[in-house]
């Protein structure tokens, strides 16, 4: 269990780091999909099989495919990739790495002085579903309204005559 978790965590971290440093968006997206699959393994290891299935089916399967379609519609060529490479010059990364490192140190300090470790529990899909569709019903309705707003917004912005 522990070995699976650590190898999946390492895979996720490495592929995410690769994803944000590629010049070609399609390569970056493929690395990101691998990182999402690693995240699915981690969810399964943590005792959340339903979340693992959702991560693979909804996130890696549906949302990333949408992303891929749009990248293909953008018809990026070799010139775009070269321009992208020139935008990624070394000095660009200095200030962001400094800022992110500072935030990371603060968060690590918070975590080190946090509460003691506890035992892991498995949460089955049944429990999630029962809670989701009884006491959290209002949140489900709000989420459906959010999706409808996203659909209407995308439809409006995507009109030909805009």
């Amino acid at each position, binding site marked *: 269990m522990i070995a699976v*978790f650590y190898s999946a965590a390492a895979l996720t971290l490495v592929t995410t780091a690769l994803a944000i440093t590629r010049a070609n968006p399609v390569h970056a997206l493929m690395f*990101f999909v691998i990182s999402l699959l690693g995240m699915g393994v981690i969810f399964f290891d*943590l005792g959340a099989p339903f979340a693992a299935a959702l991560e693979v089916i909804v*996130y890696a399967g549906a949302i990333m495919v949408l992303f891929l379609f749009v990248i293909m519609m953008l018809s990026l060529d070799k010139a775009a990739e070269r321009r992208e490479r020139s*935008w990624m010059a070394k000095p660009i990364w200095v200030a962001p790495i400094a800022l992110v490192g500072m935030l990371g140190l603060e968060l690590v300090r918070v975590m080190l002085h946090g509460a003691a470790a*506890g035992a892991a529990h498995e949460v089955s899909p049944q429990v*999630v579903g029962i809670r989701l569709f009884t006491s959290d019903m209002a949140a489900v309705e709000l989420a459906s309204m959010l999706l409808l707003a996203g659909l209407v917004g995308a439809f409006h*912005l995507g009109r030909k005559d805009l």
Partner: protein
Amino acid sequence: MIPWQMPAVLALMLFLLGLLGLLARKNLVFVLMSIEIMLNAAGLLFVTAGMRWGNPDGQIMLIFVFNLAGAELALGLVLILRLRGRMTSLDGDAAVLLRDRP
């Protein structure tokens, strides 16, 4: 058993990687991808907390995070497509005025 700090630290590192990408990249496609990475890290932290206390709320929040990511990504991608129709590059800095240059 995996101590809960380990996935929490992993979520923290993923969030920081996403933030790094958001700050350093100019291309709007990569900016959107970095936002997705940060949302995913938040989802991992929710599931970790759910595991820590054996509570289904963590996974429920993950479902809402996916919901939000889907809605946000659809709008963001449409905006990128519109921007691509108006200018040749996907440089986020080229579209800071929200109108045509005088």
